[in-house]
């Protein structure tokens, strides 16, 4: 049942030009950054060759690419998640799901998986770019995999936050703006930590970015993974509760 809902979501996305435009823009932008980093590497190469224990092509090209991709995707995800519930509410198609024998949890999970599947497709486009380097050299597959895992978890959090915000409103644009604001706030929350104020540590810990960076460096810490999983599941639970509240007494 969850997969039926997810498939419908994914299908509807590809039936509008939105999905194709987003995929094109993402791969175009990331390709540009990829070339930029390759160029940078070529400039640095003579110096790197001389230095002992110098960073390899994975550090100079792949890691920055994933880091940039995260920022670009932060801008794009709200556009993907904004319609999830709000659009159904606005066009009153939600009652189709509500009067069908499916639970609220199934609806939310279906929606989440639908948009997440699309996001994975986007990430696949970004992730195969560095693999082209294998033609002319070697890359650190461990670092690549850990960076990609970070990106996947990060994007799943983006999606779940976006989904929750979308359950709060009837207007997709409102959902998009609110999601964007929230994501950006969570993203830069660690800046408060870097100023050294009291309590900055907590804020820094809550930041999406501060759990992504270790993974980019190849540090696989279960705390980071659990942070993301907790964030995702809380947003999903909140979404189910919010959707359920539609039927209840206000």
């Amino acid at each position, binding site marked *: *049942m969850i997969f*039926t*809902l997810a498939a*419908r979501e994914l*299908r*509807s996305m590809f*039936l*509008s030009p939105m999905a194709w435009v987003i995929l094109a823009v993402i791969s175009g932008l990331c390709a540009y950054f990829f070339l930029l980093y390759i160029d940078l590497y070529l400039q640095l190469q003579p110096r790197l060759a001389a230095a002992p224990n110098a960073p390899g092509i994975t550090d100079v090209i792949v890691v920055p690419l994933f880091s940039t991709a995260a920022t670009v995707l932060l801008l794009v995800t709200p556009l993907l998640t904004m319609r999830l519930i709000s659009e159904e509410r606005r*066009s*009153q*198609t*939600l*009652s*189709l*799901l*509500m*009067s*069908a*024998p*499916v*639970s609220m949890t199934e609806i939310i999970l279906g929606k989440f998986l639908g948009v997440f599947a699309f996001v994975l497709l986007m990430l696949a486009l970004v992730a195969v770019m560095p693999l082209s380097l294998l033609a002319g050299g070697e890359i650190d597959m461990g670092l690549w995999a850990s960076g990609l895992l970070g990106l996947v978890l990060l994007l799943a959090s983006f999606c779940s936050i976006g989904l929750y915000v979308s359950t709060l409103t009837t207007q997709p644009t409102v959902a998009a703006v609110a999601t964007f604001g929230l994501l950006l706030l969570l993203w830069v929350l660690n800046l408060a930590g870097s100023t050294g104020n009291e309590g900055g540590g907590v804020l820094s810990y809550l930041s999406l970015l501060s759990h992504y960076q270790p993974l980019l460096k190849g540090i696989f810490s279960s705390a980071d993974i659990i942070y993301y999983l907790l964030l995702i599941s809380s947003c999903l639970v909140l979404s189910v509760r919010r959707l359920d509240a539609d*039927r*209840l*007494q*206000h």
Partner: protein
Amino acid sequence: MTNDILIKVEELTRYYGAQPAVEDLNFEVRRGEVLGFLGPNGAGKSTTMRMITGNLSPSHGRITINGIDILDQPKKAKADIGFLPELPPLYRELTVDEYLQFCARLNRISRDKQTNAIGTAKERCGLSDVGKRLIANLSKGYQQRVGIAQAIIHSPAVVVLDEPTVGLDPIQIREIRHLIRELSNEHSVILSTHILPEVQATCDRVQIINQGRLVLSDSIEGLIQRMQTSSLRLRTKNQINNNILLAIEGVVAVSVIDEDCVQIKHKPETNPAAAIAKITVEQGWELLELTPDRRSLEEIFVDITTAEQTVDEQIEKTGAAA
């Protein structure tokens, strides 16, 4: 018509804030019955229907669908319901076939039966030719039919239709009414409307709801009886002598409507029509028309829904005076 009750609603109440939208509603619908839900705008028709279909939870009260409480076992109860809301819930970017397939899956129709179910639903709603077309490109009437097809695809015991003929042309309305009558062979149907002839054309039973309360619940026969009044209308070519008419047994009063037409009030237990016709011929008035006066459904409806209001207003006025 069998006697098993498919929908049972007990003490159903729903508040929006402090405002009661539906108050203390009780009714039952048997298998094979078409129940018409009538009421002015904002009377609580849609709210009731949304509660029956699990889109809205009641403030208190119980709803049982086919013996299953919808609050205790929502999934099981919802499997027996097909719902067409006021605005058909269509994904406009899908084709009719894709959409119905999604609905079939959503209602857990097993894979091998899906094609059959979709085919039957399409055939019944006259959609066989438009399966490959995008819903967005269909006319309003066809979209409405897709909405109905969606509601009956899993052959639920109960079909709930909220204003199914709004925005359709007269031919489509007739087709839809025909479809509703056909549905009632196997399903129970609840339909809401504010078009009164529709109730006469399609329903077995009528409920009139006003300001969230049930003000009338009657069979169609009962309703037709209510429409009969004790007066006749007589139209003739030549001048009538009222006194001759008054002399007929059972006639209470004769009032002139225009120069060749009179209204004759009679005692409810008698029908002087035959005598009037006879006298008209004998007197050489040349009969043009002799018909029983009927109150239209509209009049009954207005009577019932406004009578309540005036009582309320009176209470308010006396309350204000005190």
